Every structure is written in structure tokens, then in C-alpha cells.
């Protein structure tokens, strides 16, 4: 009971409401002498990466360092592209239980295609600072719940405001297909739950599927009507509708649709539904994906694998059934990324999910790709993120060792070509208390 509370004024900052230190300006940096793990090509021992204006401007063993560059000595260190976590809801949910006011993850109702994660993300969520110091520079953050949960955003984990963080503010629509055990949490579900008479859940599910189909077909017709009117003003002017509007990018094939699905049947249902509706599906979850791998490959459907660290869901499953999902998908030629599937606080374990997959049959190189280049490609930003190549966004992590190893530490971090202070709520608290007598 000594002077614990001499620290009170500072400790107060540890309460809700945190602060992620701002990144510096987009300067010119030369990271010199480290092992450059480009991901897209061979590793470059004793290589140099030059960053300028937010972009990677030079990579190689014999690269000239610009005169104005701030030089970073990376001797003995490793230079990686930042990791991308694609299964999260970063910034939408701070404390899962008992602090409902910090959770902005699910909108009311079943159909919310216009609910954009971009507008709900708190740039000062403590989860952001904690995740980026392990080398995660970019996330897909998505709303959940309902049937059409909303739109996910692809965000860099740096910037004081959502617009400064955004790489693709509207990156994917999220559809949680009603399952045979209901699914969705909107009006249909509520109605089903409240029905006093014996309800046939399969019938409710069928009704939910019908309303989903109708919603998409309505949006399709709406889009065509708007387009027709744009060309031909003699037509009656169609009324605008923000909800239907929001579905158009997905219906036009500009925006993929994330379908959370783990069981083989749910995965098949999602892919078939996407085909039927001409949507571009991404499966998220994918626990049973190996069982339907050839189907996924045939339809060229990528999978965000969030189940690597999950317990086997069936009693008789082999102990390693989920550890080996990525290896099996790789062998079957299915495109995939690895994700923690965590809302935010634990996405910092992303590298170990990939590492665990590598411990169970996936090559180390593929494990690294599964958290860098492949997620970028799945979300259509493979030309901007996910590897160390000239012209790409300068999301760079400089580490003491293999980035997927738990003991490895981060020494420097750049997001969008800005140096990011390696501080987080956790480093701050550590500094406050580690030497307290």
C-alpha cells in the first residue's frame, strides 16, 4: 500500500479513452543493411528500401540512398511489408462485455448495406496501437450481425481520423446468410423468436432467404432504372434510396461480398448464392473449407481462414484439424489469407496464427504471404499493399527476427510512408508501472 496512487493522474489516462500516437510526416527514409523480405520475390540480404512520399521508391542490394533521406540502420534486422488482418472489426468494438456503449458493431435490423464501418471506426481505439506495434499495418474492419451487416473498410492502422486511415473506405459488403439454425438478428429473427405457436425454423430461414433475394433483385432493378434514367431523361425520374444504392457496387462486381461461413454446407450455400446473385464471394471462417476445396477452387473463391487456432469443433476431429486448414487449402490451390477473426484486441496474434499453420504443413513463405500479399490481392489492393515493391504504399515493418515468431520485436514501423511511434496503451502502462517500487 505504498504510493500506488501517486501515479493516479497518469493512470487515469489508462481508463477508457486512449490515444494512439500520431505518425510523423511522409518523409524520405532509407532503411539500410537489413534482410529485406520482399514477399513478392527473393529475400535481399543486406538490402536497402527507400521510402518517399508515402511510397516505396527503391528496393535492392545496391540502391542509392537519396541525399535527403533519413537513414535507418537495419543491420541485423529484417524488413517486411506490414501484415494485413482481414477478419477484424477494429475500431468498432472496444470492450466486448459489460461496456455496451463501447460496442458499435451491429446495426438494428436485418438489412444494413449502407452501414459503413468507415464511419464507426474509432481512430483512437487502444486496439490499434497495440496491434500495429507487432507489425500489423492494415486491417479490414467489418460490421457484423443481421443479414446484410454493412460494408467493411480497408484501413491503415495509423492516422488521427478515419479518412487518413482509409485505404479503401468501402471494400466489401458483408452478408451473413441465414443458417438453418436461424442466423441474422433482424426483424425476421425477432419475429420468429416471439412467435408463440410452433414455428418451423426452416420456413423462417426460407423467408429470410427470400427477403434477401428480393432485396438484391430490387437493388439490381433500381440500379438499372437509375442508369436508364441517366441516359434517357424522358423516363420518369426514379426515386433515390440509400439502402438500395449501397448494394450497387457489389451487384456490379466492383465490390466483393464477405460471407462468414465455417461448415461445409454453409460454404457451399454461400458460393451458390453468390453465383445466383452474380456476387463476388469471399468466404470468411472457412473451418470446413478443406472439405470443399475443389469446389472453392473450381469457382475461384478465396477464403479468409480464421479458424487456425480454434479448437476442433467436433469431438472426433484430429487434434490438428484446424492447424492444417491452410496447408490443405494451399495444396488444393485455393486462394486464402489467414486471419485471427478477432474483433480487435487480439488481432496482434495474427503472426502466430500464420506461424502455427507453418508448423503444420504450410511453407513458411506461404505463411508469410497469407498475412501480407494474399489478403491484399483478395481485397483488390495487391498492386498497392502486401509486398516490398517499388511503387507500393510504404507499409514497412523492421523487426529483430522472423516476423511470425512470438519473440521477435519490432524496431521501426512505417505506415503510408510515415514513421509510426512504437507506442501503445500497453507500452505506456508498462512505462508507468515497471519501475514502481
Amino acid at each position, binding site marked *: *500500500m*505504498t504510493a*500506488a496512487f501517486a501515479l493516479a493522474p497518469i*493512470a487515469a489516462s*489508462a*481508463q*477508457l479513452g486512449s490515444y494512439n500516437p500520431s505518425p510523423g510526416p511522409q518523409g524520405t527514409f532509407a532503411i539500410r543493411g537489413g534482410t529485406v523480405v520482399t514477399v513478392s520475390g527473393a529475400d535481399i540480404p543486406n538490402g536497402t528500401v527507400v521510402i518517399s512520399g508515402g511510397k516505396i521508391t527503391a528496393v535492392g542490394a545496391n540502391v542509392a540512398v537519396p541525399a535527403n533521406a533519413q537513414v535507418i540502420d537495419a543491420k541485423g534486422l529484417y524488413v517486411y511489408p506490414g501484415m494485413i488482418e482481414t477478419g477484424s472489426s477494429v475500431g468498432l468494438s*472496444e*470492450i*466486448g*462485455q*459489460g*461496456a455496451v456503449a463501447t460496442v458499435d458493431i451491429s446495426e438494428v435490423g436485418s438489412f444494413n448495406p449502407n452501414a459503413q464501418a468507415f464511419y464507426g471506426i474509432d481512430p483512437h481505439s*487502444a*486496439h490499434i496501437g*497495440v496491434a500495429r506495434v507487432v507489425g500489423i499495418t492494415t486491417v479490414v474492419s467489418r460490421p457484423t450481425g443481421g443479414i446484410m451487416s454493412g460494408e467493411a473498410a480497408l484501413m491503415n492502422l495509423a492516422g488521427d481520423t478515419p479518412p487518413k486511415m482509409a485505404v479503401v473506405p468501402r471494400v466489401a459488403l458483408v452478408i451473413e446468410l441465414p443458417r438453418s439454425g436461424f442466423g441474422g438478428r433482424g426483424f425476421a429473427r425477432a419475429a420468429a423468436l416471439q412467435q408463440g405457436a410452433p414455428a418451423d425454423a426452416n420456413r423462417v430461414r426460407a423467408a429470410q432467404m427470400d427477403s434477401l433475394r428480393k432485396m438484391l433483385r430490387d437493388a439490381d432493378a433500381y440500379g438499372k432504372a437509375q442508369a436508364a434514367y441517366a441516359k434517357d431523361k424522358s423516363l420518369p425520374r426514379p426515386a433515390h434510396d440509400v439502402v438500395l444504392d449501397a448494394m450497387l457496387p457489389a451487384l456490379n462486381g466492383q465490390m466483393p461480398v464477405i460471407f462468414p461461413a465455417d461448415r461445409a454446407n454453409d460454404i457451399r450455400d454461400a458460393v451458390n448464392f453468390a453465383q445466383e446473385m452474380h456476387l463476388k464471394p469471399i468466404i470468411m471462417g472457412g473451418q470446413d473449407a478443406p472439405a470443399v476445396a475443389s469446389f472453392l477452387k473450381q469457382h475461384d473463391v478465396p477464403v479468409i481462414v480464421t479458424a487456425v*487456432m*480454434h*479448437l*476442433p469443433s467436433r*469431438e*472426433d476431429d*484430429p*487434434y*490438428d484439424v484446424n492447424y492444417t486448414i491452410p496447408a490443405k487449402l494451399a495444396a488444393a490451390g485455393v486462394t486464402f489469407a489467414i486471419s485471427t477473426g478477432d474483433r*480487435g*484486441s*487480439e488481432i*496482434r*496474434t495474427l*503472426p*502466430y496464427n500464420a*506461424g*502455427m499453420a*507453418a*508448423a*503444420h504443413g504450410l511453407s*513458411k513463405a506461404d505463411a508469410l504471404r497469407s498475412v501480407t500479399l494474399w489478403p491484399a490481392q483478395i481485397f483488390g489492393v495487391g498492386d498497392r499493399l502486401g509486398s516490398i515493391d517499388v511503387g507500393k504504399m510504404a507499409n514497412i515493418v523492421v523487426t529483430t527476427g522472423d516476423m*511470425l*515468431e*512470438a*519473440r*521477435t*520485436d519490432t524496431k521501426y514501423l512505417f505506415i503510408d510512408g510515415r514513421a509510426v511511434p512504437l507506442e501503445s*496503451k*500497453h507500452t505506456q*502502462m*508498462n512505462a508507468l*508501472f*515497471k519501475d*514502481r*517500487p
Partner: protein
Amino acid sequence: MAALAAAAAAAQQPVPSKAGPTLIKNATVLTVTKGKLENTDLLLQNGKIAAIGKNLSAPAGAQVIDASGKYVMPGIIDPHSHTMIDAVNEGSLSVTSMVRIRDVLNPTDINIYRQLAGGVTTINVLHGSANTIGGQNAVVKLKYGRDVDEMLFPGAMPGIKFALGENVTQKNSQTAAQATGRPLRYPSTRMGQEEVLRDAFTRARDYKATWDDYNAKVKAGDKTSVAPERDLELEPLVEVLEGKRYVHAHSYRADEMLMLLNVAKEFGFTVKTLQHGLEGYKIASEIAQAGTGLSTFADEWSYKVEAYDAIPYNVAILMRHGVVATVNSDSDERARRLNIDAAKMIRYGGLTEDEALKTITYNGAVQLGVQDKVGSIEVGKDADVVIWNGDPLSVYSTAETTFIDGEIFFDIKRDQQMRQQAAQERAALEAQDRGRRAIVP
């Protein structure tokens, strides 16, 4: 009272190892307490580590395992587990010291096997966190497939689970409870938790005094007095007062931990471990001074309000202050990869490799009172060791063979054979099931 204690002790007599000798050759041996030994042999015999050295010769009939390029470490100890139990909480009352995890152990839980595959050999199976004074724990060796009696760790100190904070106040579920008209259970505040502790130990003191008086009378020749009633609720608390039972206390916030340490001090006992103790780093000196250990998550945080100030530097700060700290799972899932959680402790706070390994081995043994038997690779200790295909502090490594008392309980090759056997058994059962006569009235 003595009779029951004797029965419990009898149940924990070591069962002689059924395994023949095993010689593990040419491994990198992580002893944890005596450093890293390269190209070293390890002889397991009669359930014990019989020899450590170079070029050991295999006794007759020994199984010899070439572990070149591989690592051997002590079996992982998980100080906070809810694996293999058919009930977790007796949450009906504020004090349920009378309930025993031992009574509900399920030795067939498949999660035991999954954890063996992650190199875990000993777990501390704890009552849940529903009430201030929960039930009695069980320390178990993961001898999957054996009888419960054979799995109980011989000589482990008995313990009891306490719990403080949100789970006890039931704040998260109070609204729902009220909606269903259920009465609220005391206590609903941290203030009430202190009162529950004080009340329980006050009653335990009186109970002990009653028995002491009676025993004194009997000793003096009294043959007519009826013995006082046995009270299974208070007996374990008397054991706590007498230092014969460890307290493992679920707690999150620094203030509640301090409260418990002060109550314990007042009643003259030591809290053996704070479980979770996510804010332990804020009062590391006080914890160290109380002689209390702490067992926590490597990096879980923010899942509820009292977990918002958790930091992964917790273990390092505590250890630097002299606290015996461990990393635990509290989860069937995480228990399978505690090696990775230990490695995080190198990153967060700069533990050495040996210190990191200690958080999942030796320190856990200390917290359970079995450090003379397990937790490090030393001659004479139980042959609870794990062969890894690489450095266990690497995410790329997997456990290949897990020994307990010299016997193999997981082996990666054997596992493949078992899968085939399971598939064959299933096919046979399905055939028989189909062939079974339909029962038609």
C-alpha cells in the same frame, strides 16, 4: 476430519510407472533450471529422469529415440485450467468451499489429448469464478485414458479457488437475472466480497476453536461429549488458516487483489496465487511482499472492463519485482499452445529464454507445490518431458512425443495410426448399427 484427509491422501499414492526405460539421444535439452544442454542424452527409467549426459548407454530393453536436431523440455504446466470437468461452477452460494473438482473429473475429455499434443503434462483444474469462495481444485497429470486416481498428481498441495471482481458481482448478467425474476445473489459489489471473505474466515476460526476445545476435552479424558458437527464448508478454510491448503484467487483489478492480500494477512495465511491478476503489475511490490505468486494470460485483454488495463508486460514486471509468475490458459484452446505464449514474454518485457520457459514449467510447479517433482529437467524428477521438433519457443515447432512418468501419452506417429484405427472402428460400428434389427412393436 482425519479420516477423510487420509482417504484423500491414499488416493494420491503414486502409481508405479508402467513404462520401460527410454533413452532420448542427442537432443538439445532445455532443463529450464540448469540451462540449455546441446547434444545431450536423457534417460527415463522407472518413471523418473534417471540420467542426463553425453553418450549415455541404453539399459537392456530400453526404447532409444534419436533426437538429433530436436529439443527436449519439461512438460508444460498449466496453472489455470477447466479441462476435464463435468461442472465448473457451484454458483448458488457465495461460499462453496465444500465442493471438489475431484468429484467431477472426466478422464475421457478429448481436450486432454489435444493438450498433450501441445506438450502439456500437468494442469491445475480450478473451480469457476462465480463466487467469492469457490471449490477445491485438483492438480492432474494428463494421463489420458487412465482412471482419475491415477491422474491425480501425487503429493500436490490441495488448493481452493477464490474469485473477486465482475464475475462474482455478476454485473454482466444482473439485468438478465432481474428480468427473469431471480433473486440477486450476495455480493453485488467488491465491498461485499471483502465481507464474504471476512465472514467465512471468522466462522472458520470459530469452527476450529470448537473442535480444538472438543479435542482438548477428549484428551483430558472426557468420554461423554458428542463430537461437534463436521462442516465441509469450513474444513477447507481451516486448512487454509493452517497453511495446509493453497488459495488460488481469480482477480483482475489491483484494488481487489490488495484487499484479498490484506484479509489474508489479517487472518494469518498467504495467498498462494492470484489467478489472472491482470493488473498485478500495478502492485507488483505488494504482491512480492506478500509472498504471493501470480498466474496470468500472456496477452489477453480488453474483453471486459476489468480486463482493459491488462498488458503483456505484466509477467515481466512481476518477475522483476520477485514474484513467481506463470502464464496460463484458462482455456481448452490456448492450453494447446502455451509455448507460444511463453515466447511472447521474451518480446514483452525482455525475459530470458529460461525465464520465459519457467513461466510455463518450473514456476507453475512452485505454485502447485510440486517443484521437487516436475517443472525442470533434473535427475530424480518425474519423467514428464516433451520432445519438440524444434525450439519450443518458436511458432514453427510442434511437440512430437509427450512423456508423463516415463510413459508416452502423445506421439505424433502413433497419432496417425490411431486415426486409422478410429476410422476402422467407426466403419465397423456403422456397419453393426445398420445391421441392428429394427425394433418394431
